[in-house]
């Protein structure tokens, strides 16, 4: 076995995440689209990050991994907010986390997408297909206190709202 070992079935997924994080004297809106590789394995489904690369979650079903992924990201962003004193530092840490990956994971995701495009792999369930060429993005914006509204509580409190998966095709 080496660093290019592969799982037998892998679904290339694109997920979206949106949330508001309270930091040291700032509010930050995070809007991101990332890439993961999902793999059914014994005991459930594993989701391995591509962008961000430094994350893995597992759960009994793919839908459950969706919730776990969002919660793991939210907890991490809260930790980032604790570790950084300013919005600028927080933004830089989040952007680095999303961008950082490894070449093997990226190659596996692209190969899995090629399998989907060729019709050799079908996606799980009825996930919508995303054929865009954009691979990932992250936008971290500071929300001025005087623009905060009660509606923002929906974003701050939506920890149980899952990220949304699309099948990369």
């Amino acid at each position, binding site marked *: *076995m*080496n*660093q290019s070992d592969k799982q037998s079935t892998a679904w290339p997924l694109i997920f979206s995440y949106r949330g508001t994080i309270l930091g040291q004297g700032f509010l930050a809106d995070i809007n991101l689209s990332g890439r993961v590789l999902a793999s059914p394995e014994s005991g459930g489904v*594993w989701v391995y990050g591509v962008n961000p690369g*430094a994350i*893995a979650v597992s759960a009994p079903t793919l839908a459950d991994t969706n919730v776990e992924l969002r919660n793991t990201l939210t*907890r991490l962003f809260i930790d980032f907010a604790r570790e950084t004193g300013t919005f600028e530092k927080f933004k830089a840490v989040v952007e680095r986390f999303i961008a950082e*990956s490894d070449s093997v994971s990226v190659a596996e995701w692209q190969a899995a997408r090629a399998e989907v495009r060729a019709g050799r792999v079908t996606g799980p369930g009825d996930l919508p297909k995303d054929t865009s060429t954009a691979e990932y993005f992250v936008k971290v914006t500071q929300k001025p206190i005087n623009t905060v509204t009660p509606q923002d509580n929906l974003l701050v409190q939506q920890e149980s709202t899952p990220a949304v998966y699309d099948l990369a095709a």
Partner: protein
Amino acid sequence: MLEKCAPGHSIKPYTHSFCIMMPSGGPTYPTFPKKDQIDKGHIKKMARHLGILDCAIGFLSL
């Protein structure tokens, strides 16, 4: 395993996870679970991300 495969690394405890950092601005893995028992998937992903999977395999039968 990290002592052998990732010399110079550092580990910072976060509230919800451990942040494992390679030296000299190398890759960072900030989501390693804080649990007594860690599934292989987490270890394998961390090792791959840090670029030490081939070394880690020898230690952990991944």
